[in-house]
Structures are given as C-alpha cells and as structure tokens.
C-alpha cells in the first residue's frame, strides 16, 4: 500500500465507488430498473430524434387532417395534418432540455441557502423563512405567469424562472435536512477544531445532506416537467409550431373524441417520462435510506 491510500485519493475513489454501488442497488429493485430504463430511453430519444424522425414536424397538409394511424403515418396526423409520431418524438426535447438545466440550478441554489440557514439559524433564518412562506403562499402558476408576462417566453426566461421558483421549496427541505445533521456531535467537533462555517458546510454537512438533496432533485425534475407542460398547455410556454407535448394536448382537445390519437400519444409520452422519474426517485430514496416527505408541488 503506497500513497494511493493517502486521504486525497481515498476521497475521489470512495465517491465513484458509491456512485457505482448506488446505481447497481437501484437497478436491482424492480421499480428502480423500470424507472431508470424509461428515463434512459426518453433521454436517448430526445437526443437522437431529429435524425430519426420520418417527417418534417412543420409540414402541414390540408388533405391529411386528423387521419387515423396507418402504414405511412404510424401514429396518425393532427388537426393540421402534421405527423403525430414525428411531433411526439420531438415533443420532449424542449421540455427535457429546459428542465434538465433548471433542476440542478434550483437544487444548487436552494440547497446552499437551505444548508447555510440550517447551520446559522438565528434572526436571519427566521426572517428568511417568513419570506419563503409568504412566497409559497402564491399559487405557482401566478408567479410563473407574472414572470412570463414581464420577460417573455424564450428559453432564456424559462430556465432562470423555473430554477428560481423551484429552488425555494428546496430551501425548506435542505434546511430541515441540515437541522438533522447540525445537532450531531461531529459538526460540533469540527467547529471546536476551529473550522470556519463555509468549510464546515462543505466538508461535514454537505456529504450527509447530499442524499436528501439528490432525491429531492429527482422529484423537482418531475414537478418541473409537470409545470413546463402545464404552461405549454395553457399557451404560455413553448410557441407553435415547435412540437411540445403540452401544446399538442391543448391542440387536440377539441377533436379528442373523433381523433384521440392526436392527444393520447403525447399524453402517453409525457406520463411515461414522469412516472419513470418518480420510480427512479423512489428507488433512489429507498437505496439511500432517505425518508421522503410527501409534499405537494409549489
């Protein structure tokens, strides 16, 4: 044993070891295996679909309006004659892109503030929690729409907006998780040794709070997808003709009884992804031993 056992190396190798162990443990559970599989499939499709799709998503055809699934259009066409299969495969790209960027941002900023508050406590903590409560008092949709009304609907607006708003409940959760850890002696021991606040957060708190944050992050992703597609449904998200599942469902509403395929396929796609993420989060929580509080989305 040479200095490969020296502390610095031990740290990175244990981290990677844990990652591998966690993934394997998750995959060994039925819920984890299914969930991971679904999520991976969706991600692969989202990445590769522009090269896979048979038709142009914008191609309108007045002849083929609302035609049922057949050999050419596998999943039929919508009210403008566009191929549903193409649009469904492409429909997740915006949503996944936006939410995959916004979620880590939300967890990062909410997590940091929450942990810091959990460690510091005191007046600042009280005031901040009041603000957080007051903020959460407003229905999420109102807050979203206000931001959109102000700044428009481009990706540049949606990503920071979602990251900001969805980081706020993370503050609460991170703070609660930090509270559980802060009271324990090893944090006191670190302070007694003379470690500063920031280094205590990074070294002592974070590794222990990380599990809860990871599970929360997975759940946040699913709530964000939900919000994003709801916004699109209401007409405040992605603008046509960009394919998006929420938008597709909204468009198909009037014709649903006569042409269910135009709505059912995007519904299936969106639902399957969200269920997949939830199953993964559940398996992650069970593997890591995190107790999940059942909270409503903001």
């Amino acid at each position: 044993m040479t200095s490969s056992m020296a502390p610095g190396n031990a740290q990175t190798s244990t981290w990677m070891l844990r990652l591998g162990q966690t993934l394997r443990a998750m995959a060994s559970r039925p819920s984890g295996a299914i969930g991971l599989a679904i999520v991976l499939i969706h991600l692969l499709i989202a990445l590769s679909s522009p090269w896979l799709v048979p038709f142009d998503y914008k191609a309108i055809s007045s002849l083929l309006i609302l035609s049922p699934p057949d050999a050419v259009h596998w999943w039929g066409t919508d009210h403008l004659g566009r191929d549903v299969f193409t649009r469904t495969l492409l429909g997740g790209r915006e949503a996944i892109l936006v939410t995959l960027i916004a979620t880590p941002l939300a967890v990062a900023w909410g997590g940091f503030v929450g942990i810091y508050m959990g460690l510091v406590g005191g007046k600042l903590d009280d005031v901040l929690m009041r603000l957080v409560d007051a903020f959460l008092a407003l229905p999420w949709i109102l807050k979203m729409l206000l931001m959109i009304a102000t700044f428009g609907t481009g990706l540049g607006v949606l990503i920071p907006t979602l990251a900001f708003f969805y980081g706020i409940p993370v503050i609460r959760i991170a703070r609660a998780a930090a509270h559980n850890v802060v009271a324990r002696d090893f944090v006191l021991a670190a302070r007694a040794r003379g470690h500063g606040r920031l280094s205590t957060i990074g070294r002592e708190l974070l590794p222990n709070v990380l599990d809860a944050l990871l599970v929360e992050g997975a759940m946040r992703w699913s709530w964000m997808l939900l919000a994003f597609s709801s916004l699109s449904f209401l007409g405040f998200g992605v603008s046509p003709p960009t394919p998006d599942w929420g938008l597709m469902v909204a468009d198909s509403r009037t014709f649903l009884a006569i042409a269910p395929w135009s709505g059912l396929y995007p519904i299936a796609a969106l639902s399957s992804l969200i269920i997949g993420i939830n199953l993964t989060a559940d398996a992650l929580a069970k593997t890591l031993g995190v107790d999940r509080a059942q909270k409503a989305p903001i």
Partner: protein
Amino acid sequence: MLRMILRRLLLGAVTVGLVSLIIFTAVEVLPGDACTALLKQDAQGQRLTNCRQELGLERSATLRYFDWASSALTGDLGFSAHSTKRISELVADRLKNSLLLGIMALAVGLPLAFLAGILAALQRDKWLDLVLSGLAIGAMTIPEFVSATMLILVFSGWLGWLPGIVLTPPSAPLHEFFPAIVLPVAALAMVMTAHILRTVRSSMIEVLDSDYVRMATLKGVPYRTMVWRHVLPNALLPAINVVALTVAWLLGGVVVIEMVFNYPGLGRLMISAISDRDLALVQAIALIVAAVYVLVNLLADLLTLVANPRLRTAARRLS
C-alpha cells in the same frame, strides 16, 4: 393558550401584508401600467398623462401601495381596466364558483383519502395497499391537464354520461352548475386525494412501527381498540399540516382545471387578466388567493395546537 392563538393570527396578518407587498412590487416591475393597459394603442402623449393624473399614478409607489392596501381592507379593490367594472363584483361571482369547486373536491377527496390511506397502512404490502398506493402514485405523477383531458375523453367523449365543458354563466346560482361540475371536481380531487393518501399512509406506518404501539400490543390491547385509541390520533395529527399544504396547492391546480373545463372561476379570470394585462385585477386576485391560503394555514395551525397534547401543555405553561 390565548396568547399563542393571537400570535398566530398576528403572524398570519403579517404574512398577508408581506404577500401584498410582493404582489404590488411584482406588478410595478412589469412594463406598462394601468393606463397603458386601458388605453392600449392610444397610450401616448397627452391622453396618457391625463389618464395617469386621473388614476393617481403619478404619486410615489409607497403612497399608491398604502392607498391600495387600505382600500383593499375595506373590500374596495378598484376597477378592472379591461371590463371597466368594479373588481369586487367581478371577483365575487368567480370566487363563489371556485370555492364551490374547491369545497366539493375537499368534501369528496378528504374522507376518501383518509380512509384509503389508513386502510393502505393497515394492510401494508398486501394487495390492497399495492393497488391503492399504485393508483395514488399514478394520480400524483400525471399532470392535472392530462388527467382532466382523459376524464373528458372517457366520460364525455366515449361514454357521453357527463358534459365535458361548463357552459353555465358565472353569475348563475350554484345549483345550476350540476351536473357539469362533476368532472372538474373529480379531476381536482384525484390529485389531491393521491397526495393526502400517501401522507396519511406513511404517517400511519410510522406510528404502527413506534415503541408505544408495540407496548400497547404487549399490554394486550385488542387490535381494533389499539388502532382507534393509540394509532389514529397520533397518525392523523401530522396529516393536518399536509392537508393545509394541499389546499394551498389546490389554489394553483384549480387554474388548470378551470381552463380545461372552461369553468367560470377565479383561476380562469386570473389567466385572462394576465393575458389582458389587467394589472389591478391581477393584484386583487393574487391578494385574495394569498389571504385564503394564510387563513387555511392558520386554521390548520390552530387545529394542531388544540389536538397535540405537547403543544397544549406548553401553551398552558407559557400563559
């Protein structure tokens, strides 16, 4: 005890005040103001200045805030720029409709959720639990607009039992909303029930695994008595908070449902207010929603205070 209640009330009022401040500031930040919204294309030059003077938009923000806040307290929420009607009239009808929807959803969903959650916990990991938990997870993860759409498809499109769209005018008396209201209530209740079911279930399981329930079993307490006396009171206490949180969520979820079903409630009004840049209306609705949320939380807090022996005795000692 009284002191704790008063403190909670005070805190609630402060929260509502804070919220009103946030709303006001948010709307201030938006480009344009009530006059640009009112006058639309004509919003320029002298007409704009006159309008602003008339509506008092020249005064400082702080003054305007206090003016707005004080009139809000008396129930006067100003005028809607879009329809030039008194906001309080507009809102009153819509509020009643949304409340109808929400209260019915609660009336249907809450008992169902509690019953199902308790049963699922008592039959943990057996088939009943798996089915109920599975349904709950399904309902929770699917967006409301999806489940609402599916409900319309099945019950209105294919089976034709219920109307898929609400055509009743906003000011109609409540009983005219039936049977159109059935599907919206179902859609709303679905998600709410799922959340509460899961929470009740996990709270029950935690209590069932506790030391004191084990002690009761080892004391020879019969199963049914144990569940009623020892398990339920302890398990349902934490559920109160979640119910409050869910009600808060309802205020957001109701918007989507109202849009899907074309229901003439507060949520749909809000969407159109935002689309129309009717800022005064937006402010008013946001304030009402926030006030309802705070009120519900306050009730939940007080209920917990009364029901939880630990808090009750602490209060006694303090006062």
